[in-house]
């Protein structure tokens, strides 16, 4: 049946990307590149695995099993939770790593070096600059 074949292809893509994420987490040299591997690959792989579970649930529902509808809808809820929380957490980790002083390994230019983010602005520095400009 071609329907099962489709489910197997989705599962293979998802497992491939999840293992690739773990492997990249071991091999990359730096916090930011590891974050790139460990977040994006696992998000992409988990989209495919949960998609295969949703299709399996819809198939069970179509064949007359009512549990299939519960499986599909709850898995869709889990997928929405993953898609909302994972990129936000990755962004928070990258921001915290940069502010705690971890540098990229082979980076030539750090564009954020002189820009202070909003709540970390040194107020005395701004005041003295303003006074010097006035004089």
């Amino acid at each position, binding site marked *: 049946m071609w329907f099962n074949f489709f489910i197997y292809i989705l599962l293979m893509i998802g497992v491939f990307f*999840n293992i690739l994420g773990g492997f990249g987490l071991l091999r990359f040299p730096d916090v930011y590149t590891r974050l790139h591997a*460990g977040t994006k690959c696992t998000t992409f792989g988990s989209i495919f695995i*949960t998609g295969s579970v949703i299709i399996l649930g819809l198939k069970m529902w179509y064949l007359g099993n009512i549990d299939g509808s519960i*499986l599909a809808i*709850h898995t869709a809820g889990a997928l929405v939770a993953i898609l909302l929380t*994972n990129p936000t957490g990755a962004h928070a980790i990258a921001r*915290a790593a940069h502010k*705690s002083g971890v540098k990229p390994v082979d980076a030539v230019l750090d564009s954020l070096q002189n820009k202070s983010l909003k709540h970390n602005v040194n107020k005395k520095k701004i005041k003295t600059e303003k006074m010097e400009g006035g004089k």
Partner: protein
Amino acid sequence: MIEFYNEYVIVLIALLISITMAIIRVIKGPTAPDRIVGLDTINTIVIVGMVVFGTAFNEIIYIDVAIVYALLSFISTLYIAKYLEGGEF
């Protein structure tokens, strides 16, 4: 008779391999953000693993557990990142 999907059990074993690699990164990460990246990856894979486990053994309650685990692990990740960042809460 318990319905049992063999292919999802194989997927679970593959996810365990990925979790093992992330655990190695957590143990030997040179800095603290490396360890947090490993923990975040483990959280995502555990969520998917719960969904796959619930499908493989026909226990739909595990998928609800996965949703709650996703939200709680997100809160813990944000809290640790805020702690690393320093400054005022």
